[in-house]
């Protein structure tokens, strides 16, 4: 289906590139009088413009003077100014410029994740700085080497021999003694036998006769 509006741009293109023989006219163009009129009008306008351009071309005598003036301006132009750089510096400047202009496609989710990470990092950094600023400021401990004499307690093992006299008591007495001891709950102080050292026998012997027996005693 031919559409004049859609064909309009193609007509302009066709009119401009009329010399291109391989270009085909838009479909339905030949059967549409409006499009043919449009095409003719555009083409006439372009022909007139072409003619005007042709008219405006300077004559051959114009160019030697133009060339001389251009050469004069080029020779007055100082070398290396306004953009021209020596090759080595130029390479560096160019590579830097290219590096600055280089861009890589980054997926939006990655950018969002990076952005969130940076925001959280800044937040936590500021938060930790505030919390550390509230407490006392601790100066780092300084290490001082000082020699101090400390008394060392030395343990000495002393062996002491203790002699005890063994008492042979009858079983009843033994049981009574043990009951008494349990009632008092005070252990008898152990008889300390100092041994026979310093023992001197008496000059006179005193004899005491005890009558009766254990069973008759009342």
């Amino acid at each position: 289906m031919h559409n004049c509006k859609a064909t309009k741009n193609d007509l302009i293109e066709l009119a401009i590139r009329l010399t291109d023989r391989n270009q085909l006219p838009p479909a339905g163009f030949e059967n549409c009088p409006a499009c043919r009129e449009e095409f003719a009008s555009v083409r006439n306008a372009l022909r007139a413009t072409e003619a005007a351009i042709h008219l405006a071309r300077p004559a051959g005598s114009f160019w030697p003077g133009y060339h001389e003036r251009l050469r004069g301006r080029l020779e007055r132009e100082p070398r290396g100014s306004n953009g021209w750089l020596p090759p080595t510096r130029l390479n560096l400047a160019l590579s830097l410029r290219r590096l600055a202009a280089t861009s890589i496609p980054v997926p939006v989710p990655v950018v969002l994740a990076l952005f969130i990470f940076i925001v959280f990092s800044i937040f936590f950094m500021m938060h930790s700085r505030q919390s550390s600023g509230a407490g006392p400021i601790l100066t780092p401990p300084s290490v001082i080497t000082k020699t101090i004499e400390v008394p060392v307690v030395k343990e000495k093992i002393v062996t002491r021999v203790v002699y005890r006299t063994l008492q042979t008591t009858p079983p009843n007495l033994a049981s009574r003694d043990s009951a008494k001891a349990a009632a008092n709950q005070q252990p008898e102080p152990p008889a300390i036998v100092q041994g026979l050292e310093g023992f001197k026998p008496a000059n006179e012997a005193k004899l005491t006769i005890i009558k009766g027996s254990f069973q008759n005693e009342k």
Partner: protein
Amino acid sequence: MTENEAELIKRAQARDTDAFCQLAGLYERRIYSLALHYSHDPQDAEDLSQEVWLKAYQAIGQFRHESTFYTWIRRITINCFLNRQRTSFFRWRTMNGPLTEDDAHNELRAIQFPNVESSLNNRILFANVMRALAQLTPRQRLIFLLKHHEGMTYEEIAAAVGCSTGTAKKAVARALGKLREQLNVDVQPGECVPCAASEY
């Protein structure tokens, strides 16, 4: 790029002014013509085109043979044109309406046509074309010239000028509309219209 041109570029990069002038001689007419239609004035066109060559002379060391020399110089030309935004630069900016014969005598007196044999009709034609172009913005005019004069694609124009391809298409359509209006080339109904198919 011819071998001679490559040699000239190499010498020009070594700051050989003669070589650069020979190189400029290969393309100076195209650049001047572009500048003339952009600026509407021969004197301005000369200033503008020579400014292009000066910038090229300063930057010739940066030419890396990644494109043809003409593509590179055209890029410089486009940048020069876009940077040149002097209000006095566009002398015919306020002109409107069709040009009468009396107007042509008065206004075209200042135009120094290089081809002196040009008839009054040709002068009027030239003035009308320039007047139509003057009604466009500098950017629209540049886009139209790049399309019509240089044969660049819309994608190339968009990349060079820094606009979308849609903007470039609209600029060309607007320029053609102004030209048709100014030159009065609309075909009357019933007029014999040549079929484009016959051209092929």
